[in-house]
């Protein structure tokens, strides 16, 4: 039954506890709307035919509604609307009140990606792993402009507002992968600010957490504060990472393997790229350096020529550090580390 209604109404699958509640009210509201429109429509159509003009000069009776009629006109819709409100507000309170035992995840929107960090665990970009059947509370903020975190299958949405935290929660009901979309207009690539929630069964979740613990710190993008924790040889790479963040490389390049506005940095070093002109070239230190200084010189096929030059903006050592940093990026996209600081708010320059 729900399946059928959902197909008629084009609703996505229901993958959270909230989705079911919302949909039930949705069916009711659509039903009442159709019914009321149908009633008004039929009455109107009936009157058009029953009372069509028979001669051009026809006069009419003077009809005014009785108090009873007017009362009905007010109370009937009010009754329906208040019913909707009561159910809707009860569900809204449910949505706005995360259970006490919910697991926390920090979410930060940033033009144009989603970053996730777990208080006790890994960070990630654009991919959020959560266990099924366990409430997850999202603490959401933004680093630049307003974004809005939306998972249609969960029916959950919350704005990511710079300078403040908002919260939302959900309890996913089935393992699977669900799309995250940004629903608050946030600039050029608003419509590409996608991510996914990977819902894992409890066993898969434990496995995943263990896996993360084995990972290394070296390519964490956020943890600028705890450089001291970094393994010694990675020092230069860490600096490179910080510089890359400061000058804005991550606005267009991800480190999780997903191409964004530009190619991802993950696995870039040593990769063979196909150029716009059909040539293919192996990426080395010289390539990376030239890409920073003269981005138009060799365009990787499939990407727009939008990167600004960093000639004169980066010193020699900074350039080298970034190259070193990119050389370290060879692990899978989700990395582990100590507690993150949570999303930080930083002004965009």
């Amino acid at each position, binding site marked *: 039954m729900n399946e059928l209604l959902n197909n008629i109404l084009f609703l996505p699958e229901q993958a959270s506890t909230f989705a079911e509640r919302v949909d039930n009210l949705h069916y009711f509201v659509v039903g009442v709307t159709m019914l009321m429109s149908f009633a008004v429509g039929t009455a109107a159509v009936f009157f058009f035919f029953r009372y069509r003009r028979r001669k051009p000069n026809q*006069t009419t009776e003077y*009809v005014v509604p009785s108090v009873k009629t007017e009362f009905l006109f007010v109370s009937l819709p009010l009754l329906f609307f208040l019913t909707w409100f009561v159910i809707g507000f009860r569900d*809204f309170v449910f949505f706005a009140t995360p259970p006490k035992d919910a697991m926390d995840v920090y979410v930060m929107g940033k033009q144009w990606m989603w970053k996730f960090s777990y208080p006790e665990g890994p960070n990630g970009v654009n991919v959020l792993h959560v266990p099924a059947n366990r409430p997850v509370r999202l603490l959401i903020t933004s680093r630049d402009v307003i974004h809005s975190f939306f998972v249609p299958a969960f029916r959950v949405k919350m704005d990511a*507002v710079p300078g403040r935290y908002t919260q939302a929660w959900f309890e996913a009901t089935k393992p699977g992968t669900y799309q995250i979309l940004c629903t608050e207009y946030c600039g*050029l690539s608003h419509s590409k600010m996608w991510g996914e929630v990977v819902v894992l069964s409890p066993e898969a979740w434990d496995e995943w957490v263990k896996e993360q613990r084995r990972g290394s710190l070296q390519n964490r993008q956020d943890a600028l504060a705890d450089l001291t924790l970094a393994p010694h040889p990675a020092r230069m790479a860490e600096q490179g990472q910080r510089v890359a963040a400061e000058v804005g490389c991550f606005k267009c390049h991800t480190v999780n393997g997903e191409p964004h506005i530009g190619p991802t940095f993950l696995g870039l070093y040593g990769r063979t790229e196909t150029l716009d002109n059909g040539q293919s070239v192996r990426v080395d230190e010289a390539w990376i350096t030239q890409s920073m200084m003269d981005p138009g010189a060799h365009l990787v096929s499939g990407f727009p020529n939008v990167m600004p030059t960093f000639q004169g903006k980066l010193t020699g050592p900074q350039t080298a550090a970034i190259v070193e940093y990119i050389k370290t990026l060879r692990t899978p996209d989700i990395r582990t580390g100590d507690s993150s600081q949570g999303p930080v708010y930083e002004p965009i320059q």
Partner: protein
Amino acid sequence: MSPSSSIAAEPGAVPAPDEHHEHHPSYLTDGTTVKSWLLTLDHKRIGVMYLIWVLLFFLIGGIYALIVRLELLTPGPTIIDAMTYNRAFTMHGVVMIFLFMIPAIPGAFGNFMLPLMLGAKDVAFPKLNLTSLYLLLGGAAIAIWGMINGGMDTGWTFYTPYSTHTTTTVAPILFGAFIIGFSSIATGLNFIVTTHTMRAPGITWFKLPLFVWAMYATACIQVLATPVLGLVLLLVVGEHLFHFGIFDPALGGDPVLFQHLFWFYSHPAVYIMVLPAFGVMSEVVAAFSRKNIFGYRAVAFSSLGIAFVGFFAWGHHMFVSGQSTFNAGVFAVLTMLVGVFTAIKVFNWVGTVYKGAVDFKTPFAYFCGFLYFTVFGGMTGVAFATASLDVPWHDTYFVVAHFHFIMVGATIMAFMAALHYWFPKMFGKMYHEGWGLVSAALIILGFNATFIPQFLLGNAGMPRRYYEYPERYQTLNVASTAGASLLAFGFLISAIYLTYALVYGRRAASNPWRSRGYEWLTESPPPTHNFVGPQPTYSEEPHFYVDPKKAEVPDAV
């Protein structure tokens, strides 16, 4: 009773003016130089100039709309790049809202009809009236200059901090909108004063045509809410240029404050757009069913009611912006009240047809479309206001479909109905009825075909303002674009036969609809000072179609 108004004296007959023997030049022929039009203080000529300009703006906004819809034909890039797309939907919104929807009915038909309906020779401040036209055009010129020189990519809602950071040219466009706001305030003030002071003897408050009631309620909103918009637009411009730090948290500001201020204007503003539409429709339904309005007072007061609660509903735009749960509840209930007031109107319009004498002409066809758009658009509004449903729907295509149904659908229906109903009054010509009906049918069909798929897209979760979208949304987008072409085609037909009628149309009778609206008490087109000879007397309420021999005096409503 002894009816003394010229209409009631001869039931069903075309009223007196046609039988006048001397010929009075109409306002159209009284001076034909360009200067006599551009510097005129005649409310009718000002109304006609408004009409020409808003039609032009409608065309510009419509072209942007088609560009946007064409781009959405395929999931990836189709005809333009992302930046151009973002500018296109912003300009579509800005032009349609500030240059078409808000000024259209008050500017063109309000100006023309209000004094006629009040038995007045002109509005209270004719010079201010001309000034407000030129303020609109000046603001439009500045905004359009900005669009050509760079354009803006914020969406018509200008949400901060995006709007204070974007590198596109925000300043001239917002400044243009600021000036347009003054035009709106001036028109509103003029209408309020005119309604209070210039009613002809006999026109009491409860004998005002419902169009006047609607214009009056609209004017109150314009005067009270527009200054807030002006203020907030200036603050955004200031923040963009000089980094004030009012809305940008990086500078210590509050981005949600902008939303409060913006919606405090813009939510009532949607009623600036639809209340005039409601007013037009009250006239049209009465005229074409030849019936007094069922529940006149309820309809009149519900306009004021909507204007009033319209000020307390803005928070429903912020259910998922982190406002408190309690706030959400309060705004949800207050928003419902708007729905209730609208429902009162809808029921009373349907009641007006009851025991009427329906003549299914083009304006009445638009009334039918209007009824349907209002019911459906209004109900989806209430659905939004039920808080929990807003969570998945907010900022998706469902919102786009909702406000196009109620705001655009209802307003366009009323605008077209007004254009056809008052065309003979304004220009003294008749258009081709058959083409009128064909075009109305196409427009209504096209509208549905465009926006019903968008409701479904919203259900499926497609966010608004998307240049690219996941492939699963394509079918519905193609349907919507196809609908938009049908809609455009419908308007094209209207444009053709109306232009043709202006030039070659058959001379219209003075009152071709045999309407008993007050504005028909003078000739069509009216003479320069609105009435020749003694002023008509107003002893009946407007749209009193009772046979005087059988009439009982309506004592109470």
